[in-house]
């Protein structure tokens, strides 16, 4: 069983939902990112998403776009992030996944990229601009090396859900809102309808994200899925506190984990 699936299974046995926070690698620098990951784990997180900076993060809203820019100013290369993951793996086995855009992998070389993922002990990769139609080009390599290529399902997926679930591994990333990532005061998606379809086809754990920003929203939405993903609200804390953000991140994670 993959490290990711195992982590979800453990939460299930505890009768709890998983918490998945997101940080952008290199914001404000890679040493800080490493410390943030330890802090989020200490706060009870189940899995950490690490955003790989890209010039044009079209699926992301203003908060994560700004984090990308801050990280790009430090000239963060995906190789630097691989090195960071290798270092983290000496200290913790918490599941780690990259969230990135297809071009970074394509430019790196798909085979080399997933080989390096395996070497450093990365568990999965989420590619924001890779629908199931184009997935095989990447998954052919990821699958062989037991790296979970995480599939996304959106409120607009509807009849596509079955096809998406067929090849999904690790966990299913359920996009809770249309548009880009970012905090929303209100989420208008009809989750009842969306999850009725998802539960029919998904054989793996589900996690809900895009627009969820605090413990209150997490508490309301947790019943739909096996986990809750929070990105922009975490990045906002880093934006405000900079290298000193670790204690605040730990406290934030705990506040969310407590309601799950």
């Amino acid at each position, binding site marked *: 069983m993959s490290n990711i699936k195992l982590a979800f299974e453990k939460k299930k046995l505890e009768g709890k939902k998983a918490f998945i926070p997101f940080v952008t690698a290199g914001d404000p620098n890679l040493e800080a990112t490493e410390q943030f990951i330890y802090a989020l784990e200490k706060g009870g997180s189940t899995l950490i998403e690490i955003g790989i900076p890209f*010039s044009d993060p*079209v699926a992301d809203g203003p908060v994560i776009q700004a984090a990308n820019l801050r990280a790009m100013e430090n000239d963060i290369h995906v190789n630097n992030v691989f090195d960071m993951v290798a270092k983290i793996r000496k200290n913790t086995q918490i599941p780690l996944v990259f969230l990135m855009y297809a071009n970074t992998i*394509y430019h790196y070389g798909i085979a080399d990229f997933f080989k390096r993922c395996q070497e450093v002990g990365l568990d999965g990769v989420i590619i924001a*601009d890779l629908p199931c*139609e184009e997935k095989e080009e990447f998954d052919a390599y990821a699958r062989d090396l037991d790296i979970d290529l995480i599939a996304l399902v959106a409120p607009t997926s*509807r009849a*596509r859900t079955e096809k998406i679930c067929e090849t999904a591994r690790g966990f299913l990333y359920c996009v809770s809102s249309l*548009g880009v990532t970012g905090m929303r005061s209100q989420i208008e998606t009809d989750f009842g309808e969306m999850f009725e379809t998802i539960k029919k086809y998904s054989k793996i754990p589900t996690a809900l994200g895009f627009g969820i920003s605090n413990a209150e929203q997490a508490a309301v939405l947790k019943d739909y899925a096996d986990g809750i993903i929070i990105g922009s609200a975490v990045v906002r804390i880093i934006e405000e506190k900079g290298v000193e953000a670790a204690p605040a991140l730990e406290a934030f994670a705990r506040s969310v984990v407590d309601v799950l």
Partner: protein
Amino acid sequence: MSKKGKYGIYGGQYVPETLMNALEELEKAYDVYKNDQAFNEELDFLFKEYTGRPSLLYYAEKMTKDLGGAKIYLKREDLNHTGSHKINNVLGQMLLAKRMGKKRVIAETGAGQHGVATATIAALMGFECEIYMGEEDTVRQALNVYRMELLGAKVNPVTTGTKTLKDAVNAALQDWAQNVETTFYCMGSAVGPHPYPEIVRDFQSVIGKEIKVQTLAKEGRLPDAVMACVGGGSNAIGTFYDFIGDKEVALYGAEAGGRDIETIETAATMTKGTPGIFHGMKAYFLQTDNGSIAPVYSISAGLDYPGVGPEHSYLRDINRATYLPITDDEAVEAFEYLSKVEGIIPAIESSHAVALAKKIAPTMDKDKILVITLSGRGDKDVAAIARYKGVDLHE
């Protein structure tokens, strides 16, 4: 095409899942209407009565004599209503949007030509219309911003990234992801996820079809070479498409060299780029060492784009078409040249094709025929060229 939406290894649908349903919906609608008689009759009617098609194929006699080589014809897309080839594609896509029951259309624009065409047809057909334009381009093409507003569109300046065409596409894609159920994205070039490159190419292919008919009528044979400027590549693919099977016809694309292709201030995607994945497609892109999209530069807002359409990428790889860079200086010189020699002020985008013709035509024999597509007229560029030349203008 080997597989749905693929041109060799290029093309595809690399977009967030949120947009996939809309792309499927668009593909289905296009498959229904592309061979629908009533749809095509309506499009032909608008081409003829609203935009003034067929556009003229003009024998540039003075230019031919001056360059001393091939006989040069100009395909006058600059004479279309709204002043460029962009309206061909917009009319087709908006007729599709109407049949799909969409009420709101959005579009990106670089120089403003596609934005103006979209705003125009939105006014004609009664759509709510929002245009995304890089802030940098709203300054370079201020008149076109006012023109779009005059036509009833809302123009949103995009302040992220390089504040140019690439960022306008990002913003339009984000708007679409947010409003995908109600909104039609009218893509301006033969780029983006399938089925856009195919749709845009098909609607623009009227250019090459007419060139074929007109050259046959005037010369009794096909041209030896056709030439067009290439940013995303819509007027070029429209020019090329009907000639791809005619192996004896050479296809030339003029891309934006910017200040110098040996610097980073260039948009010469084919010359300096590598295959990549961005804006929904696999194609040639200018990229940085870590696989980000490079900031690009060209004097021409319409060619100031880090990528090129997937079909052009494929035509380059199989050596069916030749793509060569033209610098800002060469384009400005060609802008002035055509104005003085033929009394035709070309768009700065199209001036890149004229500049390439000035290099290629003299190397061709006098009995050869070269057709240059003038994608747009240069009125919009006059102020910017004056600034480039250091002339102080007061309007």
